[in-house]
């Protein structure tokens, strides 16, 4: 079970809800993924346009935990404001702190992320900061009392996979709260790798929503995360420099 604050989840896949080709495909992808935590963004409603369908309103909210993000914020104060708005919906008390510090790479601003996290924890939120793979920053966030830490594998939406497995391993090793690899996952191999490193979960969006077949990819990601987790728990064999025969070297029937 994945335990975040006092909530328990049987799925270790957290799914983003942006950029799907259609609501119908998205609904199927969400169902097949078996994700229990879904991320959302908070935005001004387009009230002057004809009533537009809203994905969240089509969900059975008793089955999902909403994880609103603070995307769009560039300062701690803006992030706190977005988190308060989300909480005022009465639907969630968790928040993904996401404060972008570089518009080109979409990498998070470490200083503002740390500040916002501290402020939100003080207000009683369940806080899951999206952070870079910086080991010391991750430790500082843990020391503040976050409920999970979410280091990125690679820039958001880049699909480049895990760029720094060593840093992620060090973050996982030192963390006393769940580590969820967030952002940059491109394929099932990346998700499995994250879990094999010992991550507690994976948060992804574009890898599914931008796949040629998002529903099939949602299932692939689910299976990859399960496989990676099992592999981690099973304990992998050592890596060697030279070949070691699998077949007996005695009783050979050749000369």
């Amino acid at each position, binding site marked *: 079970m994945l335990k975040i604050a006092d909530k328990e989840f049987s799925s270790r896949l957290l799914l*983003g*809800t*942006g*950029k*799907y080709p259609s609501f119908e495909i*998205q609904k199927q992808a969400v169902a097949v993924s078996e994700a229990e935590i879904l*991320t*959302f*963004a*908070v*935005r*001004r*409603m*387009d*009230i*002057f346009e004809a*009533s537009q369908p*809203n*994905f*969240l*309103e089509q969900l059975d909210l008793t089955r999902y935990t*909403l994880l*609103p*993000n603070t*995307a769009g914020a560039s300062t701690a104060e803006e992030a706190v404001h977005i988190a*308060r*708005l*989300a909480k*005022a*919906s*009465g*639907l969630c008390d968790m928040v993904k702190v996401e404060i972008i510090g570089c518009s080109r790479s979409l990498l998070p601003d470490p200083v503002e992320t740390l500040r916002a996290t501290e402020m939100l924890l003080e207000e009683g939120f369940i806080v899951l900061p999206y952070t870079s793979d910086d080991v010391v920053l991750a430790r500082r966030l843990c020391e503040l009392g976050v409920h999970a830490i979410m280091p990125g594998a690679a820039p*958001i*939406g880049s699909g480049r996979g895990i760029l720094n497995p060593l840093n992620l391993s060090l973050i996982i090793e030192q963390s006393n709260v769940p580590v969820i690899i967030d*952002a940059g996952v491109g394929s099932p191999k990346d998700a499995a790798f994250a879990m094999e490193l010992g991550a507690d979960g994976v*948060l*992804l*969006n*574009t890898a599914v929503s931008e796949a040629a077949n998002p529903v099939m990819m949602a299932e692939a990601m689910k299976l990859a995360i399960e496989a990676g987790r099992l592999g981690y728990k099973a304990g992998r064999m050592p890596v060697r420099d030279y070949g070691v025969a699998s077949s007996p070297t005695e009783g050979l029937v050749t000369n």
Partner: protein
Amino acid sequence: MKKMIDLNGKTYSVVPEVATIQQLLEHLGLGDRILIVEKNKEILQKDHYDTPIKDRDQIEIIHFVGGG
């Protein structure tokens, strides 16, 4: 006199029968939507939707959209 408010960044004329936030939401056909209301930069909790609307109020209606 008609009340003029700033609604989601646009000037909006409130019809006389709309006196509160709840009535505004219903008038806009948003009564059963999942949303959050901010009035003059202050977030309104659900049990405060009976707050009266005054001339020149700045009101934001916010909701959840897809995101990662």
